[in-house]
């Protein structure tokens, strides 16, 4: 696979990991940045505990390893590469979250139907 074959593919990351497993929380953004730089259309859909990464005050203090870069910085770099961040609306009440409590980098808060459409239409689906 090279750049030309990667171009314009829709890649969906289903992010279910959250602050309880910080070691799992940087790679999706790193890999997403790379794929977006290769001209893939990359969207990260946060559901289950993943939505906690979108809560203001959480990614700003969370690192994947001791002394490492904050998850929020990884997110901002992914956004600069063109990655879109989508929060799962039905998952928010389970963590007592309201859409207004999410970080500014979130592009969209969507229902499960949106995720279903993305899954059915994407070229690659990766779960973290």
């Amino acid at each position, binding site marked *: 696979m*090279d*750049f*030309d074959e990667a171009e314009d593919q829709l890649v969906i990351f289903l992010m279910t990991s959250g602050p309880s497993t910080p070691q799992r929380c940087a790679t999706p953004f*790193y*890999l997403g*940045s*790379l794929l*977006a*730089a*290769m*001209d893939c259309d990359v969207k990260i859909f946060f559901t289950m505990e993943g939505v906690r990464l979108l809560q203001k005050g959480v990614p700003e203090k969370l690192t994947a390893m001791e002394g*490492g*870069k904050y998850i929020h910085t990884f997110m901002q*770099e992914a956004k*600069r*590469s063109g990655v879109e961040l989508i929060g799962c609306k039905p998952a928010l009440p389970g963590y007592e979250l309201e859409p207004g409590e999410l970080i500014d980098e979130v592009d969209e808060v969507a229902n499960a139907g949106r995720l279903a459409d993305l899954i059915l239409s994407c070229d690659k689906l990766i779960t973290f």
Partner: protein
Amino acid sequence: MECNGCEIRPELYYDPDFQIWARREEDGSLTVGMTDYSQSIAGKILHARVRKPGTKRPANKPIATLESGKWAGPVPNFFDCVIVEPNEEIMKDPTLLNLEPYEAFIAVVEPVNGVESALTGMLTGDPACEEFCRRAREEGWECSRDIR
């Protein structure tokens, strides 16, 4: 010249955020690389991939991707261009980008609308150096070529 330990060369052209440099070549092409400041932010570069010769790249579509221990992403592109020659050396040894940022170019590109058009909006000469030093001071930019 240097500011806050970051080298900047007046004969080159720079984007407004000093991420990349470009050098005019006699045949109308541009040689493009990453600045000392950019390589310092990226840290030790572990992998570099440059687009193939003949690949068309519109402005804002990257000419290459880089991976370091703490960052992965695009090498920004400011010109509507065609890749003429990727630097094979940096794909074999990406740390050259850290060690010799102004010698280890990323690619030679041909601007689709000519060199003058491509360099419009880029900074060069003393004004580029003065602007770089001002931002380095105000924003605390620092550079290092230590890749240990």
